[in-house]
């Protein structure tokens, strides 16, 4: 028992320590890349609650990432820095309400229909921001000042300072991870796993499964909102592409690469995806071919999925299984 606890916690502590040390050793470009990775890790973790835990494959999760990013940009004043203390809660409440409305309707369907309906809602959100004048249309919208966390005259966290932003994001990543880990052990989390494994049996036992699924959908949407908020603040710019279907597909691919059904898999998958994309986009490595980065990225993903059906996280147990000697082979 103590061993398995250590085996679970030690890698997480080491990963946190490495992430915390990284800004002091890595170059500016790499620190920025790591920041992007952490934001996408939060995004992937939020979807893991739906796909891995509850068995709800949403193909529209970028809607909540994008809505949060847009609300952040639209609510940020032109000159004076807004306080995180009101901006982030407002962004999350708006995103959660959007998830409540979309979830309430799409959870009336199942399986492939659920995938299609969530995709349709996300595309609707895309066209709302694409076609509305107030949101800047296809040009997007700039965020001129970054928020701060201030107590009286003391500025505790200023998102305009890269190092501060990095550590604030790391703290949020750890918080989201811890929340989802706690949920995984809780009665709520066990009920969601039961719904994934056998919803019919859950209803026969006495669980009204619809409210459970809706709660998971809203929470996942709100947590995607945390990532969307950080994304908008980091880049200082939002455009409709961040809620397009490629973005929903990207975050699903992160889960598949890392290994569905594991929080660590979601984080590792996000890291791997961002690194691979950056690698294939690098002109230093690939020269002119770098502009065709989608081709090698796609092939790599296909190879990963074919060779590691349970993702990176499932690789150790996959290797252990193949090493077991087969007595009557051939």
């Amino acid at each position, binding site marked *: 028992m103590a061993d398995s606890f250590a085996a679970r916690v030690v890698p997480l502590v080491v990963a946190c320590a490495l992430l915390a040390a990284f800004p002091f050793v890595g170059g500016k470009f790499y620190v920025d890349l790591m920041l992007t990775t952490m934001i996408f890790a939060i995004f992937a973790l939020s979807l893991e609650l739906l796909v891995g835990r509850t068995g709800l494959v949403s193909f529209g999760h970028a809607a909540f990432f994008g809505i949060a990013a847009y609300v952040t940009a639209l609510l940020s004043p032109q000159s004076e820095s807004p306080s995180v203390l009101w901006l982030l809660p407002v962004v999350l409440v708006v995103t959660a309400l959007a998830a409540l409305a979309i979830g309430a309707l799409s959870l009336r369907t199942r399986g492939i229909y659920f995938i299609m309906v969530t995709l349709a809602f996300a595309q609707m959100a895309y066209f709302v921001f694409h076609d509305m004048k107030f949101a800047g249309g296809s040009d997007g919208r700039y965020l001129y000042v970054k928020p701060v966390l201030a107590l009286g005259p003391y500025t505790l966290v200023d998102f305009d300072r890269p190092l501060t932003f990095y550590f604030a994001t790391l703290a949020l990543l750890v918080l989201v991870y811890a929340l989802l880990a*706690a949920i995984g052990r*809780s*009665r709520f989390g066990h*009920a969601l796993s039961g719904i994934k494994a056998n919803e019919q049996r859950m209803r026969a036992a006495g669980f009204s499964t619809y409210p459970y699924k809706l709660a998971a959908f809203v929470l996942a949407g709100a947590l995607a909102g945390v990532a969307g908020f950080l994304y908008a603040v980091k880049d200082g710019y939002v455009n409709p592409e961040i809620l397009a279907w490629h973005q929903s597909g990207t975050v699903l691919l992160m889960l598949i690469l890392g290994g569905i059904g594991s929080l660590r898999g979601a984080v590792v998958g996000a890291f791997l995806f961002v690194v691979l994309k950056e690698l294939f986009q690098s002109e230093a490595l690939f020269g002119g071919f770098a502009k065709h980065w989608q081709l090698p990225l796609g092939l790599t993903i296909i190879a990963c999925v074919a060779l590691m059906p349970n993702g990176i996280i499932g690789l150790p147990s996959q290797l252990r299984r193949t090493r077991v000697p087969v007595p009557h082979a051939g």
Partner: protein
Amino acid sequence: MPDDVLLTATNVSRRFGGLTAVDRVSLTLERGEVHSVIGTNGAGKSTLVNVLAGEITASSGRVELQGRDVTRWPQPRRARAGIGRSYQRTTIFPRSTVFENCRLSAQAHYQQALDWWNPATACTKSTQLAHQAIEHAGLTGQAHRIAGTLSHGQKRQLEIAMCLATAPQVLLLDEPLAGMGAEETERMLALLAALKPGHAILLVEHDMDAVFRIADRITVMVNGAVIASGAPDAIRNNADVQTAYLGEIERPAEAAPS
């Protein structure tokens, strides 16, 4: 009406388009009694179980649980009110342990869906219920096995254990003996006999020997409707029942020449 009548169905029908799967069926389930429903394939027995459990709603008629009209209640609410069911096709959480299968079922009474901090296993009431159900169903040594790796007979026992873990008063058992060997059948019949005093049991079953051994009352369904209902001896000697069952045997012989 005695307190021991737990479930009453009155003129319950269920239609699927033009097909009437269950046709004006009335029956009662009493505590301390095994009420068996028999009938040929397609007689509507499983549909009847689904209607009583609330998995599908009745097209017409009325279902009462301890005097309360539950006809419009969805299945989870009926389950929490005391109706437990098992499935003809094993319906378990195959990748969880036997214990977690039962613990999660028991959790239905202690859901606390907004407690995201305390571990599920810290809920002592549901773990106690789970252990009791496992012991009752005769799976004590198997608690930490992964459910999907159990033998067929053990999975059927687990199916009952999960039902018991929700502490139901009414048990709707859909062919619990399906595919079981002689020894496993004996064990299951002993379990049903042990459960009888505290529960009202509806037993849908194809194994006629078992039915006539354990049932206190038997209802016979043909084409969705009840053709006879009464004590086992009365059913055995009922002319309509004999025709229905013998007719089933004769038909293939007549059809054979063509």
